[in-house]
């Protein structure tokens, strides 16, 4: 339905997006993951027709939107990374204004506004001036404004940055619900792994303007399939046990913390028996041994050698 083809954007020397290829199908929630400055917002701006690409193409239903952005604009709801609202107007006035510029009016607009207010949980505060809102409330209204015209596709650019965990969960649940109940197609940008992991079917990972991985959650985690992370818990450690772990040739990495030791081992090795034996020899009582499934965080770390959040 929506396709980015070899999309590139240069700002003077700085190549913000390099040869990006992406597609989004109807009804999907697609995640775009990457650290700050990866080029996510720039990619989205080109996709939504706000910024002209240096080269490449954006296609909606197989037609380029570069020259004729009308069709994509009609079906698109955009939640910008910034809080793009009138601070001096009330929530209701904001919704009214943006609804009207989307050519909604009268009863239809009223009903739609009531519905959106309900979805974003601001019905009680609709008369209040946006300036007086908390960060989370502003974020919710920022999303609400983008949903007024019943967009087929909604693009959210880091919609949960800088808000409390409660508001964050609320937003994530709302996105999920919109997708399930209204079959809304979602492109969700974030630098939080767990959000993308929770929401998305398919994921693109960007770093420094490049696409470094893409696929379903499972496919991406396959990248790490050759290794397991195992966490071992005990009330206290002794040097003999740690020595044994470090000297074992099948264990790649050992990280010792207060009550937990993390080790990385090849997938095919069964460590349970080995660990139990080591503990017995070292006279140590283990509380638990868990095999951790890899996270996207691990994938990013594996691919770039850097943590996602700096």
């Amino acid at each position, binding site marked *: 339905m929506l396709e980015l083809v070899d999309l590139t954007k240069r700002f003077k020397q700085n190549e913000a997006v390099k040869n990006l290829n992406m597609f989004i199908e109807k009804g999907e929630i697609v995640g775009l993951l990457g650290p700050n400055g990866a080029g996510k917002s720039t990619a989205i701006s080109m996709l939504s027709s*706000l910024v002209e690409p240096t080269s490449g193409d954006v296609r909606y239903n197989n037609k380029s939107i570069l020259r004729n952005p009308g069709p994509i604009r009609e079906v698109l709801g*955009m939640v910008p990374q*910034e809080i793009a*609202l009138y601070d*001096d*107007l009330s929530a209701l006035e904001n919704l009214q*204004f943006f609804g009207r510029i989307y050519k909604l009016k009268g009863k239809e607009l009223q009903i739609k506004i009531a519905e959106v207010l309900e979805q974003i949980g601001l019905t009680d505060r609709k008369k209040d001036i946006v300036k007086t809102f908390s960060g989370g409330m502003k974020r919710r209204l920022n999303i609400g404004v983008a949903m007024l015209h019943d967009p087929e596709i909604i693009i959210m650019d880091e919609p949960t940055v800088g808000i409390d965990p409660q508001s964050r969960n609320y937003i994530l649940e709302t996105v999920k619900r919109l997708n399930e109940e209204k079959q809304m197609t979602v492109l969700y940008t974030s630098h939080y792994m767990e959000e993308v992991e929770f929401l998305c079917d398919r994921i693109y990972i960007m770093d420094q303007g490049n696409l470094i991985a893409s696929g379903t959650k499972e496919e991406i985690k396959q990248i790490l399939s050759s290794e397991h992370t195992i966490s071992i818990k005990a009330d206290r450690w002794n040097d003999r046990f740690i020595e044994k772990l470090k000297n074992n040739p099948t264990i790649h990495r050992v990280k010792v913390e207060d009550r937990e030791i993390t080790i990385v081992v090849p997938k095919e090795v069964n460590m349970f028996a080995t660990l139990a034996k080591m503990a017995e020899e070292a006279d140590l009582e283990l509380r638990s041994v868990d095999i951790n499934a890899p996270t996207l965080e691990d994938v990013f770390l594996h691919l770039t050698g850097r943590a996602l959040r700096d």
Partner: protein
Amino acid sequence: MLGQIIKKQALILLRNPVQLLLLIGLPMILIAILGTALGSWMNGDSIEINLKVALIEHETEEEQVARFVSDMDKARLPEEAVVAIKESAIETAPIRMLKDVFVSEELSEMIVLHEVNPSEKQDVLDDDSYAALIEVPENFTYETLNEIFLDEESSINLQVFQNEQQEIGANIVGQILQQFGEQLTLGVFLADQGIDQRAMQVDVDELDSEVTVVNQGNPVSSKAYYTIGMVVMNVLFMATAIGTISFNEKQTHVFDRIILANVSRWVYFTGVLITGMIFAFIQSMLVFAFAWIVFDITWPNLFSFFIVTLSLSISVGGIAVLLTAVSYRFHSEVLTDFFSSIIVTMMAFLGGSFFPIGDSSKILQVIGNLTPNGAGMSAYLSIIRGDAMVAISNHIVYILLFAITSIIIAVLSFPRRGVSA
């Protein structure tokens, strides 16, 4: 769509009471303060003209004419010519003619000529009640007659000392003398042609508009003056207020939202333009209404008044879109800030919002009228003085040209596609 954008701008403006107070309350306060405090100073010499001019002769004119006539007797010229020249020489005595000009009906109302002894010259120069001192050097009449009738070069000129304290008065005297000089030269020409040039006079109507305006029109009270001055200045702040609101829309990315709603950027642009116009108009009307109710400032010609206010409002709209377009282009509000902090003050100063700066110099007057506020001010003052529509139409045309130029530059600099990632 346009209506929505204008309505929203209005709402934002109304939500800022401080801004509103500055735009509408401040001019009212300033009118009250300036109009009262500077009232007496204003009324000084700009409304009623009552000039004292001193004339010093170093030698009586009759003696010199007699000397010229006796020269003629000795000259080897045909008898007939000598008689004709003697006759007209007696009539052409320039200083007598100059005195006649000053006592003429038109000028005697505003100018009193005092003949003063050469020994009192310094006293007159020190006395600020005189607008000017005209000094006739020795031999002036004799040499002038020689120049007129015998084509001899003369190097003697009238000396005029103008009192800088009385600029308007001094200007008027300067202009009278200039006209007189031109006619005297014309007299030389006429005499050459053997034409009688007794009918010499200064045409008061031809004295510069400055004289006619202050002389003929209704007086302008200082409160009326400052009402106009503050209105034409403060509408400029309306332009910056609108410009700031628009730039804020770009900063907060709501402009992107408007574009994504498939609203043409030119609809938005027009919205800013019209908002600027409407608000400047409302702002002017509120302040004028205040001046009317509180200070009884009324307008002899309401039609002209509305036309000027409308033109000025259009130019405010023009400035608003210009500031918007430039700040969008450079992604910076520096120009708008510079405009509201420095340029407006300069324009207000040159336009005469603080005092009638144009009265002190022709050049400043011209420069002042090149600012839209200055042109608007001149037009409003003309209306109060009761001048006809023609007198203000030049200013209106200029204001509209200014508005159109601003709008065109704004259109050209408004970025085609938002580059805001």
